[in-house]
């Protein structure tokens, strides 16, 4: 109990003093996960929407597989990306291993199924409501997808945020492909793991508090924007 309260005060001190190390680590976490979410969403939104509207043999199997991949163990994804990006691997020439880019790739791969599966569900449900009207207006498949993605933008933001939350909380994959290099690939989660392994539990917990606070604030802001926008647009 004492350790926990000690950690909260340490967290407060770190934040209030704009501790340089903390800021750069937190900033890197946001940057890596932010870009990972952006890249994953750019692919997952159209893919999920397309899958929602498509009809082809084996579609249920694809959906089941996508839903299953939501539970991909992060450390396995990390290992696979590591093998791909290692100099001994097929993409070694890119020299991406042990850089933030490798972490972004690993996180993007990890959260793509989450976002895509959620998008698929949301769009498929909406399609039930919109289908007749859109078909009556002669909208093409692509036009339907775009109209639905835009119309469901509030619910879809939740899906994207879910992906972001998963990405920024992830430690296994980024540890393997990033190497937890001080000042280069050390993010909040790997820093917490490091401090824990060094036995500095109060600091580890303090970092944990900061990480949770970051995620909560981001979600709060998103929620506020969503509520105001929904009130305006229905």
């Amino acid at each position, binding site marked *: 109990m004492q350790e926990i309260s000690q950690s909260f005060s340490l967290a407060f001190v770190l934040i209030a003093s704009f501790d340089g190390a903390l800021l750069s680590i937190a900033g890197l976490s946001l940057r890596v996960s932010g870009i990972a979410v952006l890249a994953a969403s750019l692919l997952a939104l159209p893919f999920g929407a397309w899958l929602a509207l498509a009809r082809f043999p084996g579609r249920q199997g694809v959906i089941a597989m996508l839903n299953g991949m939501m539970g991909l163990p992060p450390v396995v994804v990390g290992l696979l990306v590591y093998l791909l990006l290692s100099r001994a691997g097929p993409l070694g020439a890119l020299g991406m291993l042990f850089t933030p880019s490798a972490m972004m790739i690993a996180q993007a791969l990890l959260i793509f199924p989450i976002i895509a599966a959620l998008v698929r569900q949301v769009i498929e449900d909406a399609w039930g409501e919109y289908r007749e*009207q*859109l078909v009556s*207006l002669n909208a093409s498949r692509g036009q339907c997808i775009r109209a639905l993605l*835009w*119309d469901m*933008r*509030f619910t879809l933001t939740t899906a994207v945020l879910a992906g972001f939350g998963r990405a920024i909380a992830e430690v296994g994959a980024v540890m393997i492909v990033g190497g937890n290099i001080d000042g280069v690939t050390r993010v909040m989660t790997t820093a917490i793991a490091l401090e824990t392994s060094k036995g500095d539990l109060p600091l580890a917990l303090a970092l944990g508090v900061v990480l949770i606070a970051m995620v909560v604030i981001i979600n709060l802001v998103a929620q506020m924007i969503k509520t105001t926008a929904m009130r305006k*647009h*229905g």
Partner: protein
Amino acid sequence: MAEVMNPPRALPLSAERLGFAAGGVTVLNEVSLSITSGSRNIVMGSNGAGKSVLMRLLHGLLTPTAGAVKWSNTDMALVRRSQAMVFQRPVMLRRSVRENVEFALKLTGHENVHRAAEAALERVGLVHLADRAARLCSGGEQQRIALARAWALQPEVLFLDEPTASLDPAATRAIEETITAIHAQGTTIVMTTHDLGQAKRIADRVLFLHHGRLVEDTSADIFFQQPQSPEAAAFIRGELLW
């Protein structure tokens, strides 16, 4: 700016021995009819008679399991563009009223989307709401937006599936006036309703369905004054048909 409808290109439309079954249940059976240009056709019948299914078959949202829907033009793209439909529950996009109408126009590649949308909104009297979020409007207003959206497309045929079923009398009147105005400009109306009064107000011709069969197909005068079939007669008397 008088708007004259182009001469009919897709009508007349004929349905030949249409049938539709789903899940082992036959919903429509041996329905044959034809729709000619300029008419106001009302499809009536009790709930479950097959009115909605018939509308969707004619409009092309469903594929018949028996028989065929034939238009007089073989260019299916043109046939599709010549129709519009308004549903019982209006489906509004999460955008402004104006943008909802513009959306439909953009899909057709219309040259002057903004002007055409403005004109459509004027005709239904909703310009003052043009920039309001469509989903925040009342049921009646939303249905008028749906009508404006359909009207902006200048369809040859306008299908309406119980458009005022969920509306209060004032809103219903506004919708009926708009439908009449749309018809006056040359659009053929095909509408379902279970409201006898509405049918009397609007119809030239009534198609009466009972248990999936077309039991009567006559002019409105004959239907309301001297119904030919016992089911129609019972319906007009206000009896429950089952």
